[in-house]
């Protein structure tokens, strides 16, 4: 029966996915202890961002980018950096700040 083959194939695929998934489980414990170590490092050094893209300030420290980063690298300007097309412009440019309110980038509701 061909549908047995289909169901077999689908189960095999699911099984493979599950196996792959289970294989990351034993490392979960290691990851957990690593996480504690990473947090210790973050707190010791006062880190704020992932060291992914190093080409510009606003890509290296997206959370620290000033509100004018987008003027320096305006969203519709010709991109300097490939990562610039991956990182969205800072939120104030998308969410107008009310006059007199805290220019905090994300205000608590």
């Amino acid at each position, binding site marked *: 029966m061909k549908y047995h083959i289909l169901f077999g194939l689908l189960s095999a695929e699911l099984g493979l996915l599950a196996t792959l998934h289970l294989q990351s489980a034993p490392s979960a414990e290691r990851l957990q202890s690593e996480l504690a170590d990473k947090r210790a490092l973050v707190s*010791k050094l*006062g880190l704020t*961002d992932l*060291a992914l893209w190093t080409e510009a300030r606003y890509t290296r420290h997206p959370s620290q980018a000033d509100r004018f980063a987008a003027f320096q690298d305006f969203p519709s300007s010709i991109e300097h950096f490939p990562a610039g097309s991956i990182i969205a412009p800072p939120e104030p440019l998308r969410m107008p700040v009310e006059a007199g309110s805290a220019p905090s*980038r994300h205000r608590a509701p």
Partner: protein
Amino acid sequence: MGSYHLGRHLKILEFALSSMLRRRTKNLGLVLVFAALVFLLSSIVFLTGALRTEALATLEASPQLLVQRAMAGRHALIPLDYGELIARLPGVGSVTPRYWGYYYDIYTGANYTLLGIGDQGLESPGSTPLRLVEGSFIMPGQRRVCLIGEGVARVRGTRIGGMVSLRDARGWMQEYEVIGLFASPSRLLTNDLILLPEADLKAHFGMPDDRATDLMVEVYNPHEVDNISRKILERLPDARPISHAEIQRTYETLFNWRGGLLLAMFLGAMAAFMILAWDKATGLSADERREIGILKAIGWETSDILELKLWEGAALALVAFLAGVTAGYAHVQRFGSELLMPVLEGWSTLFPAIDLAPQLDPYALGVLFSLTVVPYIVATVVPSWKAAITDPDRVMRAS
């Protein structure tokens, strides 16, 4: 009755499979294209999901509140006086200045992040021993030494005991002995980092004594952070507070579904998929149309034919979807998302290898499923429906 019913559906499924096997090459091609697209999409989903989890989990320990100063629309060095003023606000614990900046290395074409650590930081109470450091850490009072991230060590070809020379603000080359390395598991945080004693960093950048890059503010009650931000702004209008929650939200949006990284890479792949589905939806071949007529004439009802097409679409889409998702999972888990790296990296000279465990996020997979499998099945069934509602006697005349 139940089993009979099952039998009916299984028979239609059986014929759907027979039918697909006849167009083996075409269907195999479809499975491959479909699976390749799902592979790409799911790799992106798995990678961004893992990055988001990693960022949110590790940066959980980032400072509660940072205060920067903006001048002429740019980040400027902040006077230490500001810190004294902030420290006097009720609810504020300690205020620690941070010293850091960027360094462009003309020899390697890479940007480093230079970070200073002061005696205050080195002696901070409750700090656990740093296990992610190979070699030794900076001792209070120690000068002209540094710890470097994996990426820096790689492009500089340096190891513990080696030297890193950096051109300072006056144009003089300064040498720092590498006494420690940030270990690989921390590379997503430390890849481009050069950690110097605070005094060395200030001298290197030529920073005035009364200024810091920004201020790290300890707030006793985490719920008070926004309140304290507001108070800081009232007293220091040119200050710019950045709360811990904002840092978290930055990474949530950066790696979230609707924006940033995912969307940028997703759109292209989605467009390709839509073309595939569109082609399928508009291209019911003469053969297929004829077969639908025959089935109709030998007593199949319109609903039976739709079920047949549903099975055809579902069988192909499910096999391809699962293959794509499994391959995408393996890609992120086993192969460090290698195929995505060129896109992700951009021109970054120091992009870290990403070695994270992907997660099977049911929400993300559900969205992926409904963006690929569902439209494909619809695109298979809808055109057949038009063919299936024609009169059965057409077959009696068709040649």
